[in-house]
């Protein structure tokens, strides 16, 4: 089942002489439950693409459809609600609110919707991610790897249609990186979670079902494994 479809996405930064075309006519379609790795040189437009898919940014041109809704025409409030319900974003830097406990940070998307968490699911997530004993700590009291796990837990708590991860392991050592990727794979397999992952790491890319390569804002290859 197709969960994400984008057609002819263009993104141009700036205007006039010094304008940069970060994305140039991207067409991409992702099915539910797919684990897609996006690779490419630095500055090729990977992050830009991810931001547009997560409706954090708007494309200059083109259409993005997630679960049948066009997100490229939403207003700010609509796209904020879309973000909290349909996408989970994970960045290289963990982006936790420093003054809130890990528990509150994880439950943030639900709280924004004034919803009570499903206790069972919450426990399943924090147990899988191995941060069950850190819930009442503040982010600054956790290691980088633990913080990233918390960020992932936050992105999964709403059972989003898409999990978008921008170099989630870029900041971590080999062991931690592997654990994080394993966890992503686990959620991909167990929860049938659709994942788009940006990475520089060849080895990590090879863990994915599908590898999309971007160069100068264009998709130059799209390989499925197996």
């Amino acid at each position, binding site marked *: 089942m197709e969960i994400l479809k984008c057609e002819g996405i263009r993104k141009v930064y700036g205007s006039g002489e010094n304008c940069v075309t970060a994305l140039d006519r991207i067409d991409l379609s992702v099915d539910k439950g797919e684990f897609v790795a996006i690779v490419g040189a630095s500055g090729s437009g990977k992050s830009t693409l991810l931001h547009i898919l997560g409706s*954090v940014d708007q494309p200059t041109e083109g259409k993005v459809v997630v679960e049948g809704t066009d997100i490229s025409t939403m207003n700010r409030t609509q796209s*904020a609600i*879309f973000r909290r319900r349909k996408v989970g974003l994970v960045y290289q830097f963990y982006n936790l*609110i420093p*003054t*809130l406990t890990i528990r509150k940070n994880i439950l943030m*998307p639900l709280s*924004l919707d004034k919803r009570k968490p499903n206790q069972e699911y919450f426990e399943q997530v924090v147990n899988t991610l191995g941060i069950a004993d850190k819930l009442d700590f503040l982010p*600054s009291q956790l290691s980088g790897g633990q913080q990233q796990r918390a960020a992932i837990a936050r992105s999964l708590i709403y059972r989003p249609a898409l999990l978008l991860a*921008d170099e989630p392991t870029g900041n971590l050592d080999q062991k931690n990186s592997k654990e994080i990727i394993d966890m992503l794979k686990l959620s991909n397999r167990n929860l049938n979670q659709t994942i788009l992952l940006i990475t520089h790491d060849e080895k990590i890319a090879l863990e994915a079902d599908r590898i999309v390569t971007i160069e100068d804002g264009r998709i130059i290859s799209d390989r499925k494994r197996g």
Partner: protein
Amino acid sequence: MWKDYSVSFIKKNRASSISIMVAAFISALFLSLLCSLFFNFWNYDVEQIVLEEGGWQGRITGEIDEDDLAMIQNFANVESASVNEELSEESEIVVDVYFQDTRTIYRDMPLITEKLGLDADAASYHELLLSRYLIHDPQDAKPPLLMAFYLVILIIMSLALVLIIHNSFAVTMNARIHQFGIFSSVGATPGQICTCLMQEAAVLCAAPILVGSIIGIALSFGVIQAINLLAADVAGRHEAVFQYHPLIFVVTILVSVLTVFISAWLPARKLSRLTPLEAIRNTGELQLKKKKHSRILSLLFGIEGELAGNALKAQKKALRTSTLSLTLSFLGFTVMLCFFTLSGISTNHTYFERYQDAWDVMVTVKNTGIENIEQAEEINQLHGVKSSVAYQKAETVCAIPETDISDEVNALGGLGTVAGSSVTLAEGSYLIKAPIVIMDDAGFKEYCEQIGITSEGDGSIVLNRIWDSVNSNFRYKEYVPFIKEEPDAILLQNAGQGENPVELPVFGFTQEAPVLREEYANYALVQFIPLSMWEKISGQIGNPEADTYIRVLAEDGITLTELNALEKDIVQVIGREYTVESENRIQEKVSDENMQKGAMWILGAFCVLLAVIGIANVFSNTLGFLRQRKREFAQYMSVGMTPEGMRKMFCIEALVIAGRPLLITLPLTVLSVGFMITASYLNPMEFLTKLPIVPIVIFILAIFGFVSLAYYIGGKRMLNCNMVDALRNDSVG
């Protein structure tokens, strides 16, 4: 979650929370003071009107008998009606009418007169009083000016406060742009973010607004008391009684809340409108939009200077409001002080210095000619009186042939040049104002002896001088002879009548006026004559003024109490027969000084308040500015900048932040003071010797002091903070 978030933020950022609370407190205080004072001024105004003209609302004049009166009293909206005995005459009865609902007075009064069978113009309205209650005749569209004036001041004030305090909010909000970026990327809507910020503001400001409003009321009570104390001697003034109305409190709270709300809403809206990407990219570091070089600073202070300059430039916008408020308050403060100094000098010139020796007690005998005053000798005999003279003034004009104008005046370019349009030339003669001062015979004789002129028989003494308006200004007048000292008689006539001139023999000419408390018209030829002379000519010419004055000089070194007693004695002597008004110089000087002191206190307090707001703003701004730059400083330290280097940088920045408003203000102040000096024709040196240096220096020092204090507090925290924490990168990258 929002609650947890806000609470923990407020707890962790005491300083910025306090700066917001102080800002809210000061706004509420100020607005409350203003509202309460306005209410009291309005109230005083109404009381004054009622005292002077009565509290009646409508008046009906005409033939009104008992039945008619009963009919008026029974009219639906009439509260009471009574005959005004004072104004009523036999056939014309005046009835004062008071209404229950005054608002409909312009509808009801015509109905009443109609019922009484009177003309519509039998009804009159206390328009002045009614207008104070915003009731106007619907027929003429006169806007309620006074209320509009209050309203405009209130709005300007509240806008000024918004301008100043929104910055306190902006600082604490902008420090968290990155965090709100995170919220936003997780799916918080702009509305939710804005609401969170506004709730924070509400929680922080509720108590300060309430407390500020109440203290503002107390303060206005104090101000009213102070005004009562200082203006106790002002004639025609009744004591103001402090009053308050719950409605005013409601208005105060409303205006304060609105002011604070707008102040918080402006930055909150701006913040919530950032796209999540912009917000999350913001790591709290200052970013220069364009590459700029602070040449002067880097030249003066090296790399630290350049870094400081860049930081200041990146923060230009936030610092702009603080510069503005500081500049405004400093400008207001200094200009106000200078204005007071100038006006003080000016009144001294025009009044007290000039009349220092001219009078001690002045008695105005109302509606009485000098010929009727017989108590002059009695007054002269009173204990403590050195000399006294009674005098009356009269208006005449004289025609002086062009050839008689003095050589000095001709050397200046002729009378036309000197006196302009004050004189007219007709048929070779100038028509000149020639006021007559009639002095009692004893006083006149004394004057003659003083200037060395013998006076036998009848005649006048001519004050032969004219202000040299070409070479001197009105404050430092220089005089030249008016006419050639030849004629032994002068022809006087009544203004507007060419006929029946009176020939007045001239005893002599003088440049020295007698010691009277008089200021003579510019370009007039003044004559002094004794009473005996006046009695001869008064039938033919002279429009004498109604009142006669008695000027009394007391013995030297008299004290206020003695003079007050003397004044009382004199009034007793002369007041037996006539209506009199009296003043004494020392008392007048004291009350004038009191008035000025009072005005200075009130406006000075205003200036200080302005200064406090400006300084508080700079303080909070500077602290916020520093806090925002944790990472920046951590980076400097991590590349090996020493604490000394950091301190140097702080010093440079503090210098620039405090110095800039001063640099802007000083020339502006000098300009505006220069303008005032020019406009008032005062000698600049005289002003410079009385320049209010001390308060201005104190103010300047306070500005530097508080900016330094902010840097000291912020810098100390910065130098002690955990470099690792600060450097920990938590941006998108």
